[in-house]
């Protein structure tokens, strides 16, 4: 076909336009250092009380601060409180920092702490456990505040890094005195706007799209970072996230899938920051029902027999799981808590992997030919969760137990295994991070005998129950000295995991952060992202 002159001109113009678009930007690099951060999930709300989810809690600490915070060594440091003391075991006194201002100019005083204590325990807040419901918060003067408890609690401040202090004046001005009303018809102001005391000021938040912060020049602390701003984008697709890191469009992202880590490390401009996470992955068994809901055994519950539990434990080859499924990145665990947050972990060793012993135990318990049971597992929650479960299925098959694997998305899994779902699982894989970064949390939520009224044992899906263990845990809480507490916990761990084999611990999974080599971040084992610790070249 012969093109007319106009057509030829049009084609040339189109080619010219395309070339102009594709040529690299000629604008000079801006001077501003902006950290571009991406995560697989989205930031649900900039109101830190709205959901007790570690991602949003950690990111919101850039804007809102608590009375205390944790340093890179994970030890508790003063933050908005400069010091504190126990006047008696029930009476905590905090001295508040002077000269601190909120981003919009309000002064920080004890009134704000009293207000925040009320707001965090109020309707809509998902962080009610941060302060005991029966604790009284008393203002002594503008910079001193007392917490009067009904029972001693040495762990009171362990989670206070994420108990954000709100400005009373600002919250009242914008109708944000409650975190959110669940059936509200108007969107809560604090879900999209923030006013804290922290190192970064929220500029904009488009939920699920992009969140932008800028550095706070008037922050009370000396900044460890050299950033002018931070931009967060959720990128759900792992391949895209890795590509964005490799192409230099983002500086820091989490997580890097196991099979992409070699590639990120091979790239000259990027690397993987791997380290242990405090989350423990473990297997649980239904020890409460008289007959399992999902198994071939009728009339009795095999998991009520310790020999069966021990057999399952010894049938699982955790070293193989670590090597093959987790590519050596996990830390096999004898306890249900990470070694970094329990001082006496080295005294415990896993039960040996021994399929022959497992078969013998099963035969002794009355199951010489094994039995069938369903295993519930997530496929989108923990690192390689489904593959771990598949490996366990294979290992149990070798000792005669036929496992029917039910791998499902976390929304369905948690619906079934939670209290509302009736704790409906016979055999399951679960992960747990003690947010207080110590053992009591595990005994409270995972090991404790279930009590719906107090929520003790609220996440003890299988209802492993030994009152002696609960007694020890509560006794530990009365002990203000940490090493003495750990001694008490030692007995509790021994009974629950070795005498009773209440659970089968597997490993602590590893964190894998992808960073560009120009970006220097500090990794915390609880997977908190602290922008204030980031420097960029």
């Amino acid at each position: 076909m012969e093109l007319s002159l106009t057509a030829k001109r049009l084609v040339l113009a189109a080619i010219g336009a395309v070339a102009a678009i594709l040529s690299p930007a000629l604008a000079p690099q801006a001077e501003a250092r902006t950290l571009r951060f991406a995560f697989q999930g989205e930031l649900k709300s900039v109101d830190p009380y709205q959901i007790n989810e570690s991602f949003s809690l950690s990111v919101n600490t850039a804007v809102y601060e608590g009375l205390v915070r944790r340093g890179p060594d994970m030890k508790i440091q003063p933050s908005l409180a400069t010091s504190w003391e126990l006047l008696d075991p029930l009476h905590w006194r905090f001295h508040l920092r002077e000269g601190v201002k909120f981003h919009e100019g309000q002064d920080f005083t004890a009134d704000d702490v009293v207000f925040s204590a009320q707001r965090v325990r109020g309707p809509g807040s998902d962080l009610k456990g941060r302060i005991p419901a029966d604790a009284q918060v008393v203002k002594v003067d503008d910079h001193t505040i007392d917490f009067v408890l009904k029972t001693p609690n040495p762990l009171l401040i362990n989670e206070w890094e994420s108990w954000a202090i709100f400005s009373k004046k600002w919250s009242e001005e914008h109708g944000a005195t409650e975190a959110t009303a669940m059936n509200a018809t108007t969107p809560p102001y604090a879900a999209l706007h923030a006013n804290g005391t922290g190192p970064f000021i929220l500029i904009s938040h488009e939920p699920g799209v992009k969140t932008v912060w800028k550095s706070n020049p008037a922050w009370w602390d000396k900044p460890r970072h050299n950033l002018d701003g931070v931009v967060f984008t959720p990128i759900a697709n792992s391949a895209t996230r890795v590509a964005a890191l490799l192409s230099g469009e983002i500086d820091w992202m989490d997580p890097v899938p196991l099979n992409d880590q070699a590639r990120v490390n091979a790239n000259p401009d990027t690397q993987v920051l791997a380290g242990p996470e405090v989350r423990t992955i473990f297997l649980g068994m239904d020890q409460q029902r008289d007959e399992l809901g999902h198994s071939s055994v009728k009339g009795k519950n095999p998991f009520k027999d310790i020999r069966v539990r021990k057999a399952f434990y010894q049938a699982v080859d955790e070293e193989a799981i670590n090597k093959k499924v987790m590519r050596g990145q996990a830390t096999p665990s004898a306890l249900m808590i990470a070694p970094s947050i329990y001082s006496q972990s080295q005294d415990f060793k896993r039960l040996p992997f021994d399929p022959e012993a497992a078969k013998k135990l099963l035969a002794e318990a009355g199951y010489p030919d094994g039995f069938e049971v369903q295993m519930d597992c997530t496929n989108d929650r923990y690192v390689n969760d489904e593959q771990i479960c598949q490996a366990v299925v294979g290992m149990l098959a070798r000792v005669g137990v036929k496992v029917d694997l039910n791998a499902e998305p976390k929304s369905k899994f948690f619906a079934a295994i939670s209290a509302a779902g009736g704790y409906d699982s016979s055999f399951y894989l679960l992960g747990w991070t003690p947010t207080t970064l110590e053992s009591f949390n595990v005994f409270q939520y995972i090991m404790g005998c279930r009590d719906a009224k107090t929520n003790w044992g609220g996440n003890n899906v299988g209802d492993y129950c030994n009152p002696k263990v609960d007694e020890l845990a509560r006794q530990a809480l009365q002990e203000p000295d940490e090493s003495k507490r750990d001694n008490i916990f030692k007995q509790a761990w021994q009974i629950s995991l070795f005498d009773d084999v209440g659970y089968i611990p597997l490993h602590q999974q590893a964190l894998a952060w992808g960073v560009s080599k120009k970006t220097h971040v500090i990794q915390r084992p609880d997977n908190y992202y602290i922008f204030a610790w980031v420097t960029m070249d």
Partner: protein
Amino acid sequence: MIAFIIRRLFASIGVLIAVGLIAFVMFRYIGDPVNQMVGVETSAAERAQLREQLGLDEPVIVQALRFLLHAARLDFGMSYQFKQPVSSMIGARLPATLELAAVASILSLLAGIPLGVYTALRRDSALAKLFQALSLVGISLPTFLTGILLIYLFSVTLGWLPSFGRGEVVPIGSWWTTGLLTLSGLKSLIMPAITLALFQMTLIMRLVRAEMLEVLRADYIRFARARGLSERAVHFRHALKNTLVPVITVVGLQLGSIVAFSIITETVFAWPGMGQLFLQSVQNVDIPIMAAYLLFIAFLFVVINLVVDLLYVCVDPRLRASVRGAPG
């Protein structure tokens, strides 16, 4: 004619109500929204309270009817996850998806029609056979694979185009935001548009080719040639025009599909559109968003179908008579 329109309107409303009810019932089986709204340590009593506040413990049919009644007033409630009104969330994301869909459609037309014409006219040339083979690739490659391949080629290896996001956007009026007016916006648009358009492009190409071959065999083309018209006049003024009528119909219908199935492309490119919002809401069991999105897509399809049918009636005089009803 009016009766025809009214009949179709009623049918459309029926379709929308059916979609709403089916969607709502389906959502009972994807998980528990309350678990996604609170942390793991929240007590059972609090979750039950939350469930009651949200009306989740009422029978399904009651919840569904309430939802439909509110939807009729364009009130889709608040997102469970983000605590924002669903209509404003969808509204904020709509420009991104519509822009992407429009650009992808135009791209597929601009590429598909000329290619289709060429492969029809030069049936036996090597280039035509090459295009045919490539079109098979375009139809069989899944969208996410195409997207990832493009990202790895143009973003990671060559560094020419951004791998995610929409770039800088410029607000127009009180609601619309466009990426077409900024360089970064245009750059960000290229790969997602190509990915989304690829299937459509090959479809149009094959359709145009088949239609054109069919039309070129018709009598009136032979008579036009016999009259001495130039090849160009025959091909473009007569054959192509007649070819395009069914193509436009298909493209119109496909526009609905493009908007609905931009979900995958938007997720691969982290494009902040409705599709990405929908996928996020499925993972988070955010039922208000899911239900609103499905209703919106159903509405879109219904409107497009209606418009296409009406246009068809207007354009083709033979159909007008049958619509009016055969005169007695």
